[in-house]
């Protein structure tokens, strides 16, 4: 928990439209995307939003499909809040925050049907591609959620399927030229409420002072594909409108650099 005096001061300052790091209320820090950051991974990317950094790696394996979806490949998103990223993160089983982050990003990618899992089928009932996306936090300076979401999308865009040999087995040592069947690119943007002020891309302090947040994943200017509210304060419907509006605008800006 944050010191109450600092929280009040931060909240008062935001009310005047001033952030501690000098940004405008709706302004993101600079975003940097680097791809091919891990050679053994089928796809990988590191995304930095200011000092916040997340690495994403995609592993693609040939597997037997699940019985209830014999004609579809599989997709999984996992997140590790590595203790390297923040003195507060502990090693051990995944924390509830890392599970939430993985599930929110998983929904953004799965529910938007960004990856056409039917196209990951090789032989129905026998062989499909299984796609595993792992997100690893490198440094937490606030807004891991949006950074991780962007890293996941950058990594799946970077991924190449393994080569298939004459017997029909995967050759993991060689990557083919074929990418994943990506239909849409969901961009997650999280908007926070502190006191009565709405901000985008919180710093670590702002995140600690946050009363509520809303993550909105969108696939275009006006189509939303997943949402998650966090924090303990309830929101009015007008607030939700305003937050969604800002999230969509910011997503549109991010889409241009991806």
């Amino acid at each position: 928990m944050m010191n109450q005096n600092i929280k009040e001061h931060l909240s008062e300052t935001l009310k005047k439209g001033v952030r501690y790091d000098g940004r405008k209320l709706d302004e993101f820090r600079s975003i940097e995307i680097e791809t091919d950051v891990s050679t053994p991974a089928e796809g990988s990317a590191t995304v930095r939003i200011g000092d916040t950094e997340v690495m994403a790696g995609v592993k693609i394996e040939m597997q037997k499909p699940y019985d209830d979806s014999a004609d579809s490949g599989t997709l999984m998103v996992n997140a590790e809040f590595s203790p390297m990223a923040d003195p507060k993160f502990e090693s051990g089983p995944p924390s509830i925050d890392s599970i939430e982050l993985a599930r929110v990003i998983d929904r953004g990618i799965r529910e938007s049907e960004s990856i056409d899992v039917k196209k990951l089928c090789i032989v129905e009932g026998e062989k499909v591609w299984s796609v595993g996306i792992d997100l690893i936090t490198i440094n937490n300076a606030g807004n891991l959620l949006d950074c991780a979401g962007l890293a996941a999308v950058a990594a799946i865009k970077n991924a190449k399927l393994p080569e298939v040999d004459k017997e029909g087995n995967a050759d993991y040592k060689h990557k083919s030229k074929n990418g994943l069947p990506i239909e849409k690119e969901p961009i997650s943007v999280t908007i926070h409420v502190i006191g009565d002020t709405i901000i985008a891309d919180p710093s670590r302090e702002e995140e600690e002072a946050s009363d509520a947040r809303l993550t909105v994943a969108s696939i275009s200017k006006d189509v939303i594909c997943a949402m998650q509210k966090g924090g303990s304060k309830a929101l009015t419907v007008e607030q939700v409108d305003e937050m969604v509006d800002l999230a969509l605008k910011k997503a549109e800006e991010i889409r241009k650099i991806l």
Partner: protein
Amino acid sequence: MSYDKRNDGRGFDDCRPMEAKAGIVKSASGSASFKIGETVAFATVQGPRDLYPKFLKNPKKGKIRVFYQMMPFSGVGGRIRPGPNRRAKEISMVTAKAFEEVLCLEDFPNAVVDIYIDIPQADAGTRCAGISAASIALADAGIRMTEMVAGVAVGRTADKLLVDLDYSEEAHEEGATDIPIAVTSVTDKISLLQMDGDMTQKQLSEVLRKGIVACKAINEVQKAALKKGYEVA
């Protein structure tokens, strides 16, 4: 058939190209990355900080803990399940031991220094790269050490003794021996020694000496990275 020429053309006593960087994680007390060939290790130091549970506290000296982990996508082939497994736990333990002699643990009684080693890409020698990175990270965190530590794998592929084996050399069809070692930078003492494979006593003695020479070269890279981190622009 003998192993006459290394796959990447380097000499039998040479390490792969190395790259090191200090201060890669801003929120940590100290951090570094160390790349040797296609193997990359990140090391992050948190602390000295309070140690829990309380009964682990030692009023005479501090404790160091190492958490080694391969990232799930770091290997060729299948995904590696995250979380500690037997291999990772053992590597963490021997890595901690590799540093205990050189660290001035009496500087932080009752406290702990945690070292997190994460491997984003692996082509053999990950525990050694982790040690080389951790040593830079500890110095970057300002933890007092009497000397630094560098790690390298030495061994044998077919009939040749060599330094810094890559995965193809470790998995050579004519057999291979892998000997990860860690060497202290001033007194040239061996603070980690493991072996997997076979060789004669004479070969072992020879290859360990090759490893000590290689660690000198690694230490130069470590020192350069540290100095670069403190350069005034």
